[in-house]
């Protein structure tokens, strides 16, 4: 119990405590302490809505239901009520008032783990961003409306946004649904990960073009990440120490209270006697000091360090955009001391050379199949579409992203995945990268990424194979509603 902490700080503790009682709470301590994980807030609001209005049902009938990669059911229906999948079966009856949609192939909506759709450009590249800067604050559910519509029609229902790409640490990533345009419903998580970049070419400024970051700058950027992780870890440790001390202290106080209460009359008499004595001697009475009076000092709240602490403790992943082999090697070296850090590399153009270490450390790589030309001399110079296939072959977890630069690119995520399959990536791995594996890496596998009971009803209904060129998305069900219907 931390609730007594702020009030019982000083001496008259015994008496005062008994008089006042110990019910007040310390808002600062409970809210700001790093170990307390923020619960997703939209659960509560969704339930509230449900209480007020009649349940909303959507029944989706599939000739072929892709439950998860490699697991399919034929002629199966999925019932979604108030945004959750509540039943899956062969012969489900549509509840009264249910919207019924039907299609050839049904699967979980695609997740773009590296998108810029709806992200304000200034926030996306904000130089002044810090660990506690939230991408969700730079995102507008109303921006890029026609691009959002196109992305939905391509089957992408959920996107991960990151900000501060030109800052050392770009802040907290946001996971949003692009189906509903309502802010609260759209935001799934506002603290998906901490994002950072290493070695990215910067805008050339007045003279245009790109300005490469030199090797010393790059190494410095990696060092800075390591230092930040270190300060996050010590922040976390100092809070942990404080919390264990405060527990002990509270226990000591409780014991003292009990002791004093037991001998309350005696203590009161002793105190009155002491006051009398002091008066007789013409001295000022001093409250007796107990050793329990020394309250452990609460560390200063630091929002940036609180985020770094969560990263150091592995509560949220660290997503670093890095491309060169030396940078990736440097990052792996830098996090060696932080065993719980969950590293995700975004880009990873030259990650092949580090594949073994990446697999060993369990690092996920978000591949950006950029289709760039070879006539460039920056961090993408050696880009190759075989990257994803070769990494996966080596046991590295692979995701596929649209690069987090162009809002419009999210629409082409399924075709980019198809391109990677054409260059050696296993089909199921590619499909998993768009669905369940992305959900896992972003810590939302309990809600998204596959068609299972209890998960969010984020489904797409397609005319054929999800990665085929001619496939059309007929329906998209997001946040419990049908948000896309066939165009013609």
């Amino acid at each position, binding site marked *: 119990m931390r609730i007594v902490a702020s009030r019982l700080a000083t001496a008259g503790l015994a008496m005062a405590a008994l008089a006042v009682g110990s019910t007040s709470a310390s808002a600062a301590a409970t809210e700001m302490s790093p170990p307390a994980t923020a619960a997703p807030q939209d659960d509560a609001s969704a339930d509230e809505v449900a209480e007020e209005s009649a349940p909303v049902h959507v029944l989706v009938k599939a000739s072929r239901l892709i439950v998860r990669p490699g697991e399919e059911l034929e002629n199966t229906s999925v019932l979604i009520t108030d945004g959750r999948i509540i039943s899956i079966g062969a012969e489900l009856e549509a509840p009264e008032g249910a919207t019924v949609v039907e299609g050839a192939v049904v699967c979980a909506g695609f997740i773009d783990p590296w998108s810029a759709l709806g992200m304000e450009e200034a926030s996306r590249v904000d130089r002044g961003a810090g660990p506690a800067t939230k991408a969700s604050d730079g995102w507008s559910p109303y921006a890029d409306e026609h691009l959002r519509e*196109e992305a939905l029609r*391509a089957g992408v229902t959920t996107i991960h946004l990151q900000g501060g790409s030109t800052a050392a640490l770009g802040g907290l990533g946001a996971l949003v649904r692009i189906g509903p345009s309502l802010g609260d419903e759209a935001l799934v998580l506002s603290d998906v990960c901490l994002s950072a970049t290493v070695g990215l070419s910067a805008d050339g400024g007045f003279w245009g073009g790109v300005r490469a970051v030199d090797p010393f700058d790059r190494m410095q950027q990696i060092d800075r990440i390591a230092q930040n992780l270190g300060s996050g870890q010590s922040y976390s440790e100092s809070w942990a120490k404080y919390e264990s001390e405060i527990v002990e202290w509270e226990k000591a106080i409780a014991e003292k209270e009990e002791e004093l209460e037991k001998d309350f009359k005696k203590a009161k008499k002793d105190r009155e006697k002491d006051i009398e004595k002091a008066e007789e001697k013409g001295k000022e009475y001093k409250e007796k000091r107990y050793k329990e009076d020394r309250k452990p000092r609460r560390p200063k709240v630091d929002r940036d360090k609180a985020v770094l602490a969560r990263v150091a403790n592995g509560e949220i992943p660290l997503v670093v955009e890095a491309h060169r082999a030396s940078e990736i090697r440097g990052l792996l070296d830098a996090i060696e001391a932080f065993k719980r850090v969950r590293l995700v590399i975004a880009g990873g153009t030259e990650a092949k050379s580090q594949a073994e270490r990446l697999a060993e450390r369990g690092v996920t790589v978000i591949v950006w199949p*950029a*289709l*760039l*030309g*070879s*006539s460039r001399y920056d961090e993408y110079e050696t*880009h190759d*579409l075989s990257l994803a296939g070769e990494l996966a072959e080596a046991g590295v977890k692979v995701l596929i992203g*649209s*690069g987090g630069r*162009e*809002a*419009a*690119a*999210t*629409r*082409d995520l399924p*075709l*980019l995945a*198809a*391109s990677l*399959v*054409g*260059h*050696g990536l296993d*089909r199921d791995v590619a499909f998993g990268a768009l669905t369940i594996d992305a959900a896992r890496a972003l810590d939302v596998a309990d809600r998204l990424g596959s068609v299972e009971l209890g998960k969010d009803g984020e489904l797409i209904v397609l005319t054929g194979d999800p*990665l*085929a*060129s*001619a*496939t*059309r998305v007929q329906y998209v069900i997001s946040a419990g509603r049908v948000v896309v219907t066939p165009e013609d």
Partner: protein
Amino acid sequence: MILSTIVTASLALTGAFEGPATEGAPLPAPTPTAEESVLQPISVERAVAFKAKRVFFGDGNHVDDGIVLVQDGVIHSVGADVAVPEGVAIVELDGMLSPGLIASHSYEGLGAEHADSTRPTMPEADIAMAFQPHHVDFAKTLAAGVTSVVLAPSSATLIPGTTAVVKTSGGKVVRRPAQLQVVLSNDALNWNSFPTSHAGAMAELDRLFSEPTGQIARATSGNLPVLLSADDRSDISRAVSFAGRYRLRGAIYGSMWAEDLIDQIAKSGLGVVCNPFDVGEDSRGMRAVVGLAKRGVRLGFGLDAPNRDPENLRFGAALCIRGGLDSKLALKAMCSDAASIAGVERRIGRLERGLDADMVLWSGDPTELTSSVVAVYVDGTLVHGGGE
């Protein structure tokens, strides 16, 4: 080196291709075509029959379990019921065969040599002079299943020169000059030197085309197709009327804004070479292609490698298919349509009797991005992949 390949190529063009005389089993009742003269009776030693699960002819049609019979780098016969003379080697291919893809506008291996801004009009400048057949760019393009590209001069001047069709392996120039390029977009205008305006540019073009000489005369007499670069709708309108005025045949390069002008383009008889499609491309570009294809306009896809990954060619086609383009037409645009726009339809672009045996073996349908290039053959020779 370049010179000799050019000579061979032009000989082949004029139908003077000669191989050593052979005796062998004659082909049963061959259907006569225009290219008959280049064909020799089948020789057991020199002919090879390729069998594939599906053979795409490149003109929008295909046949399952097809055979392509090749001799001396030239296709002898294609179909499901090709009689392979006894003794001819048969290669069983696990996959689908298509003609080698053709990029209708590209810059591989040209380095800085495709841009000359010293004069606004250089109709005699031949881009084939800048062609470096062994440049590393071509290997990547070849690996993407593209066996021929239309090399184009940079569209930074009014008439930057003529294009050339070259193969991405072996250094053959299929045709040069292939098209006379005329730039009707803002790219040709300068702020401080002639021409500074569209009106001025058009006046200069009218001056040159009303008393034509050299390549311009070949264009106005219908012997050389044109490639009219256009960025926006007014460029396209100007291109259509310019082509009509001088009875030019050929194509417009630049499809992005064509959606509103489909009718005019279809009536003009011009083909359209699409700008390369990038990831996240504006959907108006795809709508234009779908609309043009519906009206039967010949289409080609630009690539502009090495500034883009050669995979952009098929990616652009896939984007258009997602937008509603029939996948058969998408493949046709990368094969026979591209060849006919560049004036090389009697050499490449289809798997047909008498044409070069430039073929790609795919793991599946070439218009699916999930399909990969298994092997590439140029002039009947395996030049990429095919191992194991």
